[in-house]
């Protein structure tokens, strides 16, 4: 019995990531805002959203299409999805009765408890099968169709009957028969539970016939140690059966747990979708492009929309075969927000989710990294510049050629000349390696230096500023300009003209 709602051919198994990189992504792209919207108050859903997003960075297009189909089913059948999820929660309640209880108990105790819990699980499995039968016609994705099919096939009534018979037969009314051999130090070893041979002799043979040699003894009534020793011996024999049954309960629980985990992700998507619809924000299922590409219409930052609870400015872009995006222009002009919207959409696309845009098409990246300027770092041991370089170096250790790196005001902890030189060297090496680079910078030396190299794959973007100094938060193509508009900001904040202007 398999769930397989996240992968066509395997269980979801979050790959061990790179904690430092994930923490940076989380913080720089404001991912918790998105996960909170997905969770709708359920911390388990939050955790699943996080895990799926972070472990989907090596996804293939098939998996993305597979998930998109499952997600479309979920968005079309919200009530049914929530009911299935609720059923898995019932199984989790049973877990409390079983799993933690088994550990360290004697086989005899485990056996009788397993018999009891399995009885209850059988009821739950019957319910799940019935629900699958009822929902079958309304779900069209291969993922859901396969799941519902298996449930009906593997949990057919005939099989469930056999199981229930076996559960009854394990009470041993005739006593327990164990087989053994002589082990180390002549202690009994290899205890196995035996099914007694049927006695085919007639009653006369039984009385008169030759008996096989045997030796019997009895534990005296007051010999408590002896009674304990005997029951331990018996436990050795029934241990494999007890383990098999305890494991069967775990397997069933494991199935429900996986079902819950994988449904939780889609439930999270459903929750997010409902919130965005309420805000009137568009969503779309992204297209995976086989070539290097990044094109979108009205892409916005989900975290900004969710945080401010209103529609926010979206941006458009058409860029094929571009691997270097340099963003310059006005402070507070929306550069960081733009960078975030790109990172968020990339991660969500790779997880198989919809994205916050009217349309979105991009190639897959095998790793998204952020290198944002840190305002302050409480754990900082060395200088700020040292810290930036150290962080960069650790990213380099994990880079693969098709990765994406988002820089935000990086290497500006030293003077502009040195910072620009180092940044240029790094960007050059990354581009040659095949990495897609986004770089938000106010260092004119860097931006104009890269501009003058007129590199084919480069696209220069600028935060728009109207002639009155007003910002539109639109990011448009445009070459770097020497000023970073700090003066505007100063004026806006201090409401006074700059001295000397």
């Amino acid at each position, binding site marked *: 019995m398999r769930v397989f709602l996240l992968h066509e051919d395997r269980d979801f198994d979050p790959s061990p990531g790179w904690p430092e990189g994930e923490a940076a992504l989380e913080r720089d792209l404001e991912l918790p805002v998105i996960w909170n919207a997905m969770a709708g108050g359920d911390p388990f859903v939050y955790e699943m959203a996080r895990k799926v997003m972070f472990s989907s960075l090596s996804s293939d297009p098939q998996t993305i299409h597979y998930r998109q189909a499952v997600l479309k089913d979920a968005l079309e059948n919200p009530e049914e999805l929530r009911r299935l999820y609720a059923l898995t929660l019932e199984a989790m309640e049973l877990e409390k009765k079983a799993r933690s209880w088994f550990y360290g108990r004697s086989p005899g105790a485990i056996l009788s408890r397993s018999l009891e819990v399995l009885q209850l699980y059988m009821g739950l499995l019957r319910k799940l099968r019935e629900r699958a039968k009822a929902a079958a016609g309304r779900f069209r994705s291969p993922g859901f169709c396969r799941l519902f099919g298996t449930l009906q096939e593997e949990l057919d009534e005939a099989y469930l009957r056999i199981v229930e018979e076996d559960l009854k037969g394990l009470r041993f009314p005739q006593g327990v028969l164990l087989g053994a051999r002589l082990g180390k130090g002549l202690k009994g070893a290899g205890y196995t539970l035996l*099914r007694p041979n049927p006695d085919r002799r007639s009653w006369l043979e039984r009385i008169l016939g030759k008996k096989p*040699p045997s030796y019997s003894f*009895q534990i005296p009534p007051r010999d408590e140690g002896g009674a304990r020793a005997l029951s331990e011996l*018996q436990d050795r024999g029934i241990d494999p059966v007890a383990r098999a049954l305890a494991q069967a309960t775990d397997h069933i629980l*494991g199935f429900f747990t996986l079902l819950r985990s994988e449904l939780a992700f889609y439930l999270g998507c459903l929750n997010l979708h409902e919130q965005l619809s309420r805000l009137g924000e568009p969503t779309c299922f992204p297209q995976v492009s086989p070539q290097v590409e990044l094109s979108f219409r009205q892409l916005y930052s989900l975290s900004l929309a969710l945080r401010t609870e209103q529609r926010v400015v979206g941006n458009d872009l058409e860029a094929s075969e571009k691997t270097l995006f340099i963003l310059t222009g006005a402070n507070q002009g929306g550069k960081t927000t733009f960078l975030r919207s790109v990172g968020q959409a990339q991660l969500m696309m790779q997880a198989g989710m919809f994205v916050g845009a009217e349309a979105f098409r991009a190639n897959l990246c095998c790793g998204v990294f952020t290198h944002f300027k840190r305002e302050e770092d409480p754990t900082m041991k060395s200088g700020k510049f040292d810290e930036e370089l150290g962080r960069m170096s650790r990213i380099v250790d994990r880079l693969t050629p098709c990765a994406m790196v988002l820089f935000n005001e990086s290497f500006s902890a030293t003077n502009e000349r040195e910072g620009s030189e180092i940044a240029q060297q790094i960007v050059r090496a990354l581009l040659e390696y095949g990495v897609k680079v986004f770089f938000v910078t106010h260092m004119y030396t860097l931006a104009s230096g890269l501009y003058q190299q007129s590199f084919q794959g480069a696209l220069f973007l600028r935060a728009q500023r109207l002639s009155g100094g007003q910002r539109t938060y639109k990011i448009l193509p445009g070459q770097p300009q020497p000023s970073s508009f700090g003066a505007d900001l100063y004026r806006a904040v201090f409401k006074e003209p700059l001295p000397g202007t």
Partner: protein
Amino acid sequence: MRAFYSILWPGEPFPLASGMPPFFPDLNLDQVVEGLVAGREAEDLKPFFYTAPLSLEAIGYRQEVFRDLEHPALAEAVRRFIQGMAAMRDHLALAQKLYYPYQKASYFLEAVELYVQAVRGLARELAQQQPLSAGLRGLCGYLVEYLGTEDFTSLEKEVRGLREGLGSVRYSVHIRGDRVTVRPYAGEADYSTEIEATFARFRQGAVRDYPAKFSDWPEMNHVEAQILEGVARLYPGLFARLVALYTHNSDYLDPKVATFDREVQFYLAYLEYIAGLRKAGLPFCYPQVGKDKAVAVRGGFDLALAQKLWAEGELVVQNDFYLNGQERILVVTGANQGGKTTFARTFGQLHYLAALGCPVPGEKARLFLWDRILTHFERGEAAGDPRGKLEDDLVRTREILTQATSHSLILLNEIFSSTALEDAAYLGRRILEALSARDALGVCVTFLEELAALNEKTVSMVSAVSPEDPAVRTFKIVRRPPVGLAYALAVAEKYGLTYARLRERLQASSGTEGKP
């Protein structure tokens, strides 16, 4: 053939040192020995490592045995023998301790069986592998004789018979309430596999297992003992023979075999200790040991440090050194934390290990057979009364000068470092002059650059820094006049983030990961 005495000594053994030689801590040889004997505490191997034979014959004898044991097949054979003997001792101890007679006899049977197998196995492997060393050839001859004796062969036969008999016993135990019945096994079917088959459909990959905790003490409880009594009644002849074996064979262990078992661990301990380093690419070599003071080492390193770094996933830096003609004393100066002390230790360790007959850390080595090693290392203790400390330093140095002969090895590390510069220079010069007069061999680590060119016996060596980034220590000690130094930091280079370094790094990683 010469009579076989011992795998450590070509003739009558020397008396073993009872304690650690005084220079061990300075050279970190105490750490090395702790590492060497780790896991073999029961064998009490330390005295072997504390006792350098100081005889060229013994060094040669041991080097030969080492070379033989470098062959994996031979080492494996000896290791199996040692494991067998250790297991045998464990079983004997248990046989002593247990209560029920059948159990005692059974553990004794197993001990004898392990012994027979261990000795037989070792003899067979030695005959097959044809060792070249006088030591192992001597042992091989001895074992052939021993295995042919009537005592040994009849013991072996009885052990095998009993083992087969006991191994084929099968019985069943029926438990109903408080009544237990023991019978021979009558072909009943296994019930658990039937149940497991029914529930196989629910399998979901690996889940937690619930292994019951059964006591697996060797001891039996009285219920088990009663069941065993029942089994013994089902097979009376077999159990009588078992008891007879136990009663009549208490003196089966041969004394020379027992001694070999302990002594050969000197070799195995050392080879195992260096195996990881070798795998990581660090060389070890058999030094040429003699009375010539023109020592020369290529790629030597500090064994204790190498182990420590290797455990942390790093490789120790190797260094070369040599002495020509009149040269006797290597004077090491240069950057702090640059590997100077390590260098002095390396010099001392190589000489000590060579005198033990061991392969030494390095690619190639010609070393001196010393009569004593004398060290004085600054320990960096909080300087209390500077005058008292200077006095202690001088007392210790005087002792060294009294003991030193022209065959001694002297290692001085940063002595007088807490003394006023002028005093330190004066004292340092006087002491090196005294050592030169003795014609002793040694290393002197010092911050006093003027000592480096004191006379024709001193050679200057310097801890080098990287030319590209002076902040990076190379831990290389090179023959060069002293340099005063300290440059600025090249930060991006340090992080490997210049264009050139990045290209290198990314190329290297794409070789292993590739495009997914």
